[in-house]
């Protein structure tokens, strides 16, 4: 077994030994220095704080859902209240946590660092995107405070456009506004990755994290405006009855479903692709090995982005869509399995003969691979026309997409937060607690959502809070799992806060990882690098080739 040899370069040692050094955190302490900052790293922190708030707010609604589902009777709340609970849970988690989570926090922090740039291409636009996000969030939060929304996060017409008596407009305006923050982030990343790479950093030397974010940005730029116009039309329909979704005037409510899923299915890939980018970094670093099949992983991200726009119809298999359209959508939906499987196989092959170590980020990464595989394979069930008729609108769907969004996206997010925590804060987190929390999350997650596959297959429909008694056992298991999962999310919140003051000081490269972000001190200075780095090698050169070793001997 080979052990990883890590030799810090002399310039890094110099930087570490300096006792006082200006970095992006200690350069200013006023509120103004945070709220008017143009520094992508500080904006990432602003996003980190705000998405965390929305995550726990969305989680609070989940608590009420799981409490209600402990018993078959509707004893905790009325149907209307329950409808509001799952709607608010969905809206908060999807639009205000999952979509911005990795791109706006980790992507914002890391994209310029990883490509050796001083900042994103448009720093002011970046700050604007955070303000837009917050304004959208406030609108939606106001909708919650004023009584909530009950349409489901999908806002299906004609219920949302004509019949619902809740705060649809307010929530819709919030989502409309927040969409523009997503678009601005996407444009910023695309331009930055195209135009601001350091000398020598060619496209195929980019970290796979960057490829994943590039693909994500494409979806954000192409998909988000479509949900914007769709929500705008729902609003116009509600306010002025222009008729586009109203059968009375010749309009078609199903058109809404097409437009909605044209964005919202690709949006699933906005959530999972960045997570996949994180996993590529983690797997290589903790295997101390060059990634297996770099080009395949890079292009599979782009392939997923392209295919994501051709699969929306699998949400309409039971909506009266033509059977031929259904067959085409079924085919493309299954085709998404190919690039997804390419990633999973390449990660696994990267582990093979690597010097694998099991630090907390790696535990999340390995958990991701397993859970994403289950989530992805059950996606094939749902893409199969006949099976979908049986499990449509049941807990099988709920379990499937939580395996992708929670088991996939959030595991990747937490893994990434731990991995780059030393870079972001300059402090190490407590490793023992972090490994323990990762295991708690994994166990809690599976106990929450695996029973839901069974429930759905047995026929329990989603979005009902009263159910036959024979389903109680599985529902209680799920609620118990959710409790464990909740604890698993609270533990990192506590020890990460603790580490800000009491964690050991982090070196520039505590993991011995490759990548430009590790070549600058932790935390980085405001301008990221003292000199613009020049890249001379491929990504993930963990095992230097013999020629390289010889060269270094000569030197």
């Amino acid at each position, binding site marked *: 077994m080979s052990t990883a040899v890590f030799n810090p370069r002399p310039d890094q040692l110099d930087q570490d030994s300096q006792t006082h050094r200006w970095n992006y955190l200690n350069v200013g302490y006023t509120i103004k220095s945070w709220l008017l900052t143009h520094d992508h790293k500080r904006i990432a922190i602003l996003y980190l704080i705000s998405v965390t708030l929305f995550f726990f707010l969305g989680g609070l609604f989940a608590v009420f859902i799981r409490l209600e589902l402990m018993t078959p009777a509707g004893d905790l709340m009325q149907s209307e209240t329950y409808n509001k609970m799952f709607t608010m849970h969905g809206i908060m988690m999807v639009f205000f946590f999952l979509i911005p989570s990795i791109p706006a926090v980790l992507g914002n922090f890391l994209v*310029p660092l990883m490509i050796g*740039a*001083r*900042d*994103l*291409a*448009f*720093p002011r*636009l970046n700050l604007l995107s955070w303000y837009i996000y917050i304004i959208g969030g406030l609108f939606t939060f106001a909708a919650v405070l004023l009584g909530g929304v009950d349409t489901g996060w999908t806002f299906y017409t004609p219920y949302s456009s004509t019949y619902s008596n809740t705060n649809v407009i307010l929530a819709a305006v919030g989502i409309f506004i927040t969409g523009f923050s997503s*678009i601005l982030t*996407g*444009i*910023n990343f*695309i*331009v*930055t990755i*195209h*135009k*601001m790479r350091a000398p020598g950093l060619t496209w195929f030397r980019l970290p796979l994290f960057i490829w994943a974010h590039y693909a994500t940005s494409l979806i954000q*730029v*192409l*998909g*988000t*405006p*479509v949900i*914007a*116009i*769709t929500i705008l*039309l729902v609003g*116009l329909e509600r306010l*002025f*009855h*222009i*008729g*586009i979704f109203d059968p*009375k*005037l*010749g*309009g*078609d409510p199903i*058109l809404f479903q097409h*437009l909605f899923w044209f964005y919202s299915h690709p949006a699933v890939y906005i959530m999972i692709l960045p997570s996949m980018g994180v996993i590529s970094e983690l797997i290589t670093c903790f295997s101390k090995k060059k990634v297996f099949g770099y080009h395949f992983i890079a292009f599979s991200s782009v392939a997923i982005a392209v295919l994501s726009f051709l699969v929306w119809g699998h949400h309409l298999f039971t909506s009266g869509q033509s059977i031929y359209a259904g067959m085409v959508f079924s085919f493309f939906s299954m085709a998404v399995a190919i690039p997804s499987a390419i990633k999973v196989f390449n990660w696994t092959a990267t582990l093979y003969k690597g010097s694998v170590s099991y630090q907390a980020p790696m535990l999340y990464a390995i958990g991701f691979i397993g859970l994403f595989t289950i989530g992805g394979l059950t996606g094939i069930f749902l893409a199969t026309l006949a099976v979908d008729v049986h499990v449509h609108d049941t807990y099988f769907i709920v379990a499937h997409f939580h395996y992708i969004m929670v088991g996939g996206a959030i595991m990747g997010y937490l893994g990434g937060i731990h991995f780059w925590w030393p870079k972001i804060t300059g402090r190490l987190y407590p490793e023992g607690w972090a490994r323990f929390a990762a295991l708690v999350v994994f166990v809690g997650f599976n106990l929450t959502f695996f029973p839901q596959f069974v429930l759905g297959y047995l026929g329990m429909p989603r979005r009902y809070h009263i159910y036959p008694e024979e389903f109680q056992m599985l529902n209680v298991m799920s609620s118990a799992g959710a409790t464990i999962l909740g604890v698993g999310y609270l533990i990192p919140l506590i020890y990460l806060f603790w580490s800000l003051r009491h964690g050991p000081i982090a070196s520039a490269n505590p993991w011995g990882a490759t990548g430009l972000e590790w070549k600058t001190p932790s935390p980085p200075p405001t*301008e990221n690098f003292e000199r*613009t780095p020049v890249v001379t090698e491929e990504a993930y050169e963990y095992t230097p080739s013999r020629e390289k070793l010889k060269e270094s001997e000569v030197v």
Partner: protein
Amino acid sequence: MSEHSSALAHQFDDLEQQFEASTLGMWAFLITEIMFFGGLFLGYAIYRSLYPEAFAEASRLLDYRLGAINTAVLICSSLTMVLAVRAAQLGQRKALIVFLLLTIFLGSAFLGNKVVEYAHKFEHHLVPGASFSPEPPLAHPQQAQLFFGFYFAMTGLHALHMIIGIGILTMLVVQSKRGRFSSEYFSPVDITGLYWHFVDVVWIFLFPLLYLISRT
């Protein structure tokens, strides 16, 4: 020289990189705009193919002469915009300001015309909703409402883009008066031009789709 270095934002190495980045950024933004309007165009295409007669009938209620005048006004504004960009590239400050003001004037003329058109629709009860009652009565009053729903949504969204464009042009006039632009640094004018032409092109599609479909 100090003027040039103040135009260069700290994250860029040189003005060329900065110019390329802002141009690419504007193109990416215009792609989102195409997708944004695309949703409306898709809805229009679907319902027009479902109800061709109702759409043709309702389209005849629009005044194509006003639409044609506005098309001409907008094409002229694109010309003045191009001339403004050229003046900026050559560093001719006076010409730049004149052409920007002309563009603003033509854009405002378009919007004024639009106000007149909208007022007509209100007077003749052509606004979708409870008060929709065209004289003489139409053969397909429901689907005609759908047409007018699209008319107001599409032209309204287009007009909103014009208003934003005029706002940006006004800011450019203020900045050029302060001597912000030179033959080395003119990318704000350049990318505003891209935006302005995009908004014009949207109208070039809207005009035949809304005003001319019954006049073959």
